[in-house]
């Protein structure tokens, strides 16, 4: 099991970098469909947005930490903030989409998106902040697709 961390200043312009790192890593090293990588990218991005807004709400300049764990059967991304915390189940729900009042809600779609997009999403509050743990199941890309077939052939030749 390998692990690494990114620390980003709590500013919106850094989220694109996190998306790039996480999606490139998943694309290169995990045996998951590209569509799943888009889902992971969006979920991680939403969690980073929430983390940065949590820091802004208390004028914190502390970094947001993105911890990536690559295990045999899963890729896990934890987004840890030092914000004031929140209870995901206590968030107000929106009016139904067919209700004209729905248009009064521009916010609050991030958490439902995170929950829908990935295999597992946990919201772990603590005294120091909130950690969102996002998990995508699927093994390392050691076979199945054409690229790794070719790669294996090359490696076998060298061996």
């Amino acid at each position, binding site marked *: 099991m390998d692990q690494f961390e990114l620390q980003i200043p709590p500013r919106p312009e850094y*989220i694109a970098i996190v998306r790039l790192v996480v999606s490139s890593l998943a694309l290169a090293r995990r045996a998951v469909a590209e569509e799943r990588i*888009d889902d992971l990218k969006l979920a991680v991005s939403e969690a980073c947005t929430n983390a940065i807004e949590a820091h802004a709400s208390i004028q914190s300049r502390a970094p947001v930490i993105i911890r990536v764990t690559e295990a045999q059967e899963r890729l896990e991304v934890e987004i840890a903030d030092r914000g004031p915390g929140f209870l995901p189940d206590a968030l107000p729900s929106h009016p139904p989409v*067919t209700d004209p009042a729905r248009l*009064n809600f*521009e916010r609050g*779609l*991030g958490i439902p998106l995170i929950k829908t997009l990935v295999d597992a999403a946990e919201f772990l509050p603590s005294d120091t902040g909130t950690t969102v743990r996002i998990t995508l199941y699927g093994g390392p890309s050691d076979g199945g697709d054409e690229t790794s077939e070719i790669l294996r052939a090359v490696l076998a030749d060298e061996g």
Partner: protein
Amino acid sequence: MELGLEVAEGPAPYTVLAVKGEVDVYTAPRLREKLVELVSQGKHQIIVDLEGVDFLDSTGLGVLVGGLKRLRSNDGDLSLVCTQSRILKVFEITGLTKVFSIYDSVDGATAG
């Protein structure tokens, strides 16, 4: 990571706003400003073309919902052009496919 925003006049009364790049919490404010600007110029039938968008998150959705609300309160409308499954999926999950009219081309949107 620049957000491209190009305005073109469509067949009257339509105005087309073509968005390119990534729409997230960093870039969405620019999209919001552009929509506000167009509405204040009296453009009340806006087609937002999302075909050049690589990434759209909930902040982007929020800006589009805000734009739709602003236009409807001016007896106008905001419709979308989008055929990319990765972007459409975000509208589907959030139920916003029922709120927006989504077309597969600008021509389709002006005809609709």
